């Protein structure tokens, strides 16, 4: 039978055609539309969702995330478009012609309510006992749409077993709403490829290769999936109870180190906007909770710069002067445990390129249970060493068997920013109102160079601030205004920079005098460095190096597993969006600029530790024992 348009297909099977612009010269131009009878003008190609958000019209979404590609699977963002028979997913509808949109009609509201009811019908778990209670997108939507009963029933019993095999990430599929944000995060954003949807129809679920446990597949523990999960289906493995236990045990000396990124973000958990640094308020709060000493991870970040920088100089010297063919260049940074595990799995043949220097967290752990234990006269076995990190992979890192160089587990617990905020709240403390306290001695001071480790490009900037002064003898400020190395900042996926050394070299500083006789061999050289954040970008660089491309000629490359670096880490407050990452980075750079000491080698505590404890200098026997490590060729075969 023919319908009124003369087509044989029934109306229900007629494909929707998104109107193309009649005049292609308008591409890049604007188009005028009507949303809820108000006229707007938007750039051609804007999605309906973007147009609405731009104009402060709220559209609920679950599968949409600013970091990820469009999926259009949750259908919550449906709107009416005049002339279209069915509701349209606003996130996946690019505006190419003047259209009229209605965002709140009875049909839209009913459809959204139905979708929420259907999700709730399969969502098992009590809100009270959920880590995401009060910060859950599904819970918020249920409230927004006035869900007061389960229209389509509610699953009473757990359907899936909780997978807590990993040190970092726990999967509770009972709470999954199949938005596939984690899938897009893992495959597109990070290119690790742990999670995918399996089966079909009503049996669809998110799973791993051959339904194995997370600990048995190639997961780098970056936690980016946790950060994007709208519900409590993915969360970190919470160790805060163990820490409370240690604090309450008076025989234990519990110390904590705080990394720069959690300090720039933890305020968000207490209702502050993004970009408020809480460094000194956090110190007070931690002391009030009951930690015996609070240290600044930036101190070991400074130490990392000295150790890793020295290692680079040794590598360059061996390669250029001693013509040692075994030396692996470019040298890769090793502070990001997600990146380290990524390399171990996907490019194990490049492990020699990885700096042997431990991450700042692990360096601190080793020093606390040796140097510090001696200094305060506490038996290392009674010290419980905690680290607040923006990171879920740090939980895995501190449990690596090779991280016991002090004779004990160097770091006992890695806490995420979220867990820390939870503990502070549990102690009845409102963080923003805390007075400010400084870090405890003997590690007290840290430089701004250690601080900027938190943002992508920060490690490289810190390293260059030191290397440039070491080699040229000139102040970094003379070369880069205010010692800010701007080409390394910002969120471009891959950054590249060349630094000409010039013909004037300075004397070799005392600290590394025993390693290189002079700098004449670096005269006229050009130092080539690169920065990548997010493992998808890391993969691009690695493939280029494999092909022998531009990056294979670099000397030093910084890799961070998480987009934006640590400030966008998997342990950071939820949500994390590009805008929030930008604000956190700004907070870190502002704090750096406010500090007096902004170069790692200027840090007096660093000078002191090389005099008092690591007195054979960087990359010496003792520093190799405590501050350096080795890696494991894991490969990508899943047994």
């Amino acid at each position, binding site marked *: 039978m023919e319908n009124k348009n003369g087509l044989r297909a029934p109306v229900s099977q007629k494909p929707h055609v998104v109107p193309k612009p009649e005049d292609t010269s308008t591409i890049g131009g604007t188009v005028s539309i009507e949303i809820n009878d108000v006229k707007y003008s938007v750039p051609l190609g804007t999605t309906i969702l973007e147009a609405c958000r731009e104009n402060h019209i709220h559209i609920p979404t679950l599968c949409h995330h600013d970091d990820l590609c469009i999926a259009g699977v949750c259908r919550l963002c449906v709107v009416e478009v005049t002339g279209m028979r069915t509701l349209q997913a606003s996130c996946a509808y690019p505006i190419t012609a003047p259209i009229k949109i209605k965002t709140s009609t009875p049909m839209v509201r009913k459809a959204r309510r139905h979708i929420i009811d259907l999700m709730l019908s399969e969502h098992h778990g009590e809100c009270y006992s959920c880590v995401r209670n009060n910060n859950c997108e599904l819970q918020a939507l249920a409230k927004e749409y006035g869900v007061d009963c389960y229209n389509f029933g509610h699953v009473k019993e757990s359907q899936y077993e909780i997978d807590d095999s990993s040190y970092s990430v726990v999967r509770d599929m009972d709470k999954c709403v199949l938005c596939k944000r984690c899938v897009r995060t893992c*495959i597109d954003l990070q290119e*690790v490829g742990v999670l*995918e*949807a*399996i*089966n079909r129809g009503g049996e669809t679920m998110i799973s791993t*290769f051959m339904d194995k446990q997370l600990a048995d*597949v190639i997961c780098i523990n970056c936690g980016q999936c946790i950060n994007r999960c709208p519900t409590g289906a993915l969360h970190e493995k919470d160790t805060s109870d163990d820490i409370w236990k240690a604090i309450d045990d008076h025989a234990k000396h519990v110390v904590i180190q705080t990394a720069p990124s959690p300090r720039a973000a933890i305020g968000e958990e207490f209702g502050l906007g993004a970009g408020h640094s809480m460094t000194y308020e956090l110190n007070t709060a931690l002391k009030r909770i009951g930690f015996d000493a609070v240290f600044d991870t930036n101190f070991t970040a400074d130490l990392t710069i000295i150790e890793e920088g020295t290692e680079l100089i040794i590598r360059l010297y061996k390669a250029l002067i001693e013509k040692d063919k075994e030396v692996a260049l470019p040298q890769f940074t090793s502070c990001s445990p997600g990146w380290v595990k990524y390399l171990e799995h996907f490019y194990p043949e490049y492990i020699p390129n990885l700096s042997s220097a431990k991450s700042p967290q692990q360096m601190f752990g080793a020093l606390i249970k040796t140097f510090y234990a001696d200094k305060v006269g506490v038996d290392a076995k009674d010290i419980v060493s905690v680290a607040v990190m923006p990171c879920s992979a740090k939980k895995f890192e501190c449990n690596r068997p090779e991280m016991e160089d002090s004779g004990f587990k160097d770091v006992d617990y890695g806490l995420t920013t979220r867990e820390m905020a939870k503990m502070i709240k549990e102690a009845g403390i409102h963080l923003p109102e805390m007075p400010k306290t400084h870090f405890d001695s003997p590690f007290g001071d840290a430089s701004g160079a250690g601080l900027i480790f938190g943002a992508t490009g920060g490690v490289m900037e810190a390293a260059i601030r030191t290397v440039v002064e070491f080699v040229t003898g000139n102040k970094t400020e003379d070369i880069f205004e205010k010692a800010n190395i701007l080409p390394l900042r910002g969120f471009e996926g891959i950054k590249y920079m060349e630094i000409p050394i010039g013909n004037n070299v300075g004397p070799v500083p005392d600290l590394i005098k025993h390693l290189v006789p002079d700098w004449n061999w670096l005269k006229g050289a050009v130092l080539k460095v690169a920065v990548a954040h997010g493992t998808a970008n890391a993969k691009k660089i690695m493939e280029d190096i494999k092909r022998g491309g531009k990056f294979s000629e670099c000397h030093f490359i910084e890799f961070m597993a998480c987009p934006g670096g640590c400030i966008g880490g998997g342990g950071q407050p939820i949500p994390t969006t590009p805008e929030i990452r930008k604000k956190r980075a700004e907070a870190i750079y502002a704090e750096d600029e406010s500090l007096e000491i902004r170069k790692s080698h200027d840090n007096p505590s660093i000078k002191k530790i090389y005099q008092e404890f690591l007195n054979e200098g960087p990359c010496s026997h003792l520093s190799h024992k405590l501050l350096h490590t080795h890696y494991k060729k894991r490969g990508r075969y*899943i047994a």
Partner: protein
Amino acid sequence: MLVVEKNSLTDEIEVLVEKYGKERSSLLPILQEIQRNHKYISDFAQQEIARLLDIHPVEVYSVITFYSFLNAKPKGRNIVRLCRTITCDLLGKENVVAAIERELGIKFGETTKDNRITLEYANCLGMCDQGPALLVNDKVYTELTPEKAVQILNSVR
């Protein structure tokens, strides 16, 4: 799996990748051939396919689990699929189910101990006018009665 078996499987997949190309779209024909030749696609084969197509093993697994005719785990020598869709149901499917389960001593979704038969349900086989319908490997049997079904099963080796 023995190293020799692994190597020959890798060789086989390499030939298939050569034949169909390294694009993502080659995944299905490659999987179909491996399924045809080996009756299932082992976890090793999945990872080799993923490696050679430069995708993730979990994506291969995801595709396999999506399609009923691709298996990630070994099944019986013969796969018997009974249509469970509404027409066959109205035409007396339940009696056939009872007879088959009694005859083989297994339930649907299971495999006989001697590995001879795996029982599964299938959705519409397109034989609604001649139901109940049964698929043995790739051969269709129609207008089943419990007796006829048992007879067919006994002829399957």
